[in-house]
């Protein structure tokens, strides 16, 4: 009987496993970014039109910016479990990251809505547009354009923060790499691969954000 070596080297399979982890990272980030942006848009609009709405949402925003995301993940995970409604690691981290994304988005969108001149909206209304029409074709496009660079910044943050989902058991890229490291005992090589992946994902987006910001300020 052949003995099985305790540690085995890096195999092609491992790269496939890392790729799968990268897929999980992207999948989680995609949900959090899409849902978070939509929710953040609604919250930002509510905050800009209603004092009470603003007062309520500010509490959420304040907490999600002042408590480490790691703790937010653990607390929400524990809360669902404590109330006999355990969520899968993916669902739980999507919920937390969505709220996290939404609260940051609501902050820039609130400022964005308030920066659109009242005159433009009045002009649109006096052309016979309804509130909804003016909102859809005047206010929102201007607001989204102005806040695009900040939005890119938030997206980058959330992309990188998906790595924290590992603490509640979601096997994304970084957690996957740790599992491989445990078997192969080659932390440097595996971590470098992971680092290059994150960098290649984030750097172009950061460049795009910087370019847009420069273009808008001119």
């Amino acid at each position: 009987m052949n003995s099985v070596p305790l540690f085995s080297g890096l195999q092609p399979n491992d790269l496939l496993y890392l790729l799968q982890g990268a897929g999980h990272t992207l999948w989680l980030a995609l949900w959090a970014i899409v849902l978070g942006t939509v929710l953040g848009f609604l919250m930002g609009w509510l905050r800009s039109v209603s004092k009470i709405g603003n007062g309520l949402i500010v509490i959420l925003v304040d907490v999600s910016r002042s408590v480490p995301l790691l703790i937010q993940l653990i607390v929400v995970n524990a809360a669902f479990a404590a109330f006999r409604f355990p969520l899968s690691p993916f669902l739980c981290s999507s919920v937390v990251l969505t709220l996290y994304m939404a609260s940051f988005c609501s902050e820039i969108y609130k400022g964005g809505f308030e920066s659109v001149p009242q005159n433009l909206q009045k002009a649109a209304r006096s052309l016979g547009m309804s509130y909804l029409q003016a909102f859809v074709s005047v206010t929102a496009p201007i607001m989204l354009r102005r806040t695009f660079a900040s939005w890119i910044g938030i997206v980058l943050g959330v992309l990188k923060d998906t790595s924290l989902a590992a603490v509640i058991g979601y096997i994304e890229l970084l957690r996957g790499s740790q599992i491989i490291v445990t078997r192969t005992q080659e932390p440097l090589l595996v971590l470098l691969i992971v680092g290059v992946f994150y960098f290649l994902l984030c750097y172009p987006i950061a460049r795009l954000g910087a370019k847009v910001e420069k273009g808008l300020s001119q």
Partner: protein
Amino acid sequence: MNYHFQWAPVWRAFPDLLPGLIMTLELTLLSFVLGSVIAFVLAWGKSSSSRSAKGICVAWIEIARNTPCLFQIYMAYFGLGALGVDVNSFYAVLGAITFNTAGYLAEVIRGGIDGVDPRQYRAGTALGMNRRQTFSRIILPQLVPLILPGAGNQLIWSLLNTSLGMVVGLQELTGATYTAQSLTFRSFEFFIATAIIYYVLAKLVTLMLYGAARLYGGKRRVQA
């Protein structure tokens, strides 16, 4: 929907959390101070005429900003370990968060320097000041209020990032909480308590920043 909160274990474990709290504060302040010093060097190096200095500084800034902080901590802890450099988790986390903070702060500082009119250097020269005098008496006082909001946010980020120490077994506030809750499995109560502590710490930092901003007459509001 009938969960019974039990706060007694949390109160009893509170003295065990205090050393963790102190370590969190140490990590935050040390990484911020070291990071600020390095950030000034990076911001200066990025506009340096020496290609190699510029390359190193740009690489530092871009890697720090475009990879997760958790990855940087793993790199400092497991990666350096593989190279034969034996670092304990405290220095690994301190090093990684300093690396991260320096990268972000360098951009904040560069933004501030861009915000001050470069013609003031020439004006300073015309008044008979040398470059160092111009920087410390003319540019720096204008730089401080420009940098303060960004630097303040970064200080809060450093505080929140120290919680990642738990992942490499460091007994800072989050790590200490994790250890304490593992004795009673009251993880929900324990982490709510820790969340409140972090919240209060972040608010204290914000208050300090308001004070600093008033002191320097900064007009921009400090966020977070």
